[in-house]
């Protein structure tokens, strides 16, 4: 079964510095993968998705992620953090045949001045 592991429960960066949120996946084939963001007291928003068309995926708000099959990873990055990036980030993989999504445990990103 497909699953994802988010390696950090909490990441703190200074504003203007790079962001790296790590996600490893477990699958017997190249899956689709997503990153969602959840701002405090708000719903989930899709940041980006990988569907095997290109290994480097660009998303909204300057985020991007690279699918690396050799490392079974799909890490989320951003060159320069902004205060508004502070949120919870979820790595997500579809599972089964009924469009179910399995969420990682989440990484809370804190951005400091």
């Amino acid at each position, binding site marked *: 079964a497909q699953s994802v592991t988010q390696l950090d429960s909490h990441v703190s960066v200074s504003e203007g510095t790079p962001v790296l949120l790590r996600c490893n996946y477990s699958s017997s084939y190249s899956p*689709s993968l*997503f990153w*969602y963001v959840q701002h405090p007291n*708000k*719903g*989930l*928003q*899709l940041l980006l*998705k990988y*569907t095997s068309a290109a290994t480097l995926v660009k998303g909204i708000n300057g985020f991007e992620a690279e699918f690396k099959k050799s490392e079974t990873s799909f890490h989320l990055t951003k060159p320069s953090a902004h205060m508004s990036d502070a949120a919870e980030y*979820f790595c997500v993989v*579809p599972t089964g045949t*009924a*469009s*179910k*999504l*399995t*969420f*990682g*445990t*989440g990484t809370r990103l804190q951005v400091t001045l």
Partner: protein
Amino acid sequence: SAVISQKPSRDICQRGTSLTIQCQVDSQVTMMFWYRQQPGQSLTLIATANQGSEATYESGFVIDKFPISRPNLTFSTLTVSNMSPEDSSIYLCSAAGTDYNEQFFGPGTRLTVL
């Protein structure tokens, strides 16, 4: 994409009572989903709701506790029955887009059970 609204946005309830959460989508969708997010936790799928059929529940969730209705292609409800403090969570609904692997989420309903 789809825009999803939920009502109520939050509620405080007494144990033993029930609460029905409504989910409205701005377009017709085949598949809708209900998730629970317990405090400080990730999202867990409760059930899949397709119009015209019974909801499909995930392991650990039962229809008597979480009855779901899906009367048409734009609307669904989730009832949390006989509530206890352990049911305090955020409940989110989602709808699958034309790419069935992509889902759009509502803002959630924050439930507190006293």
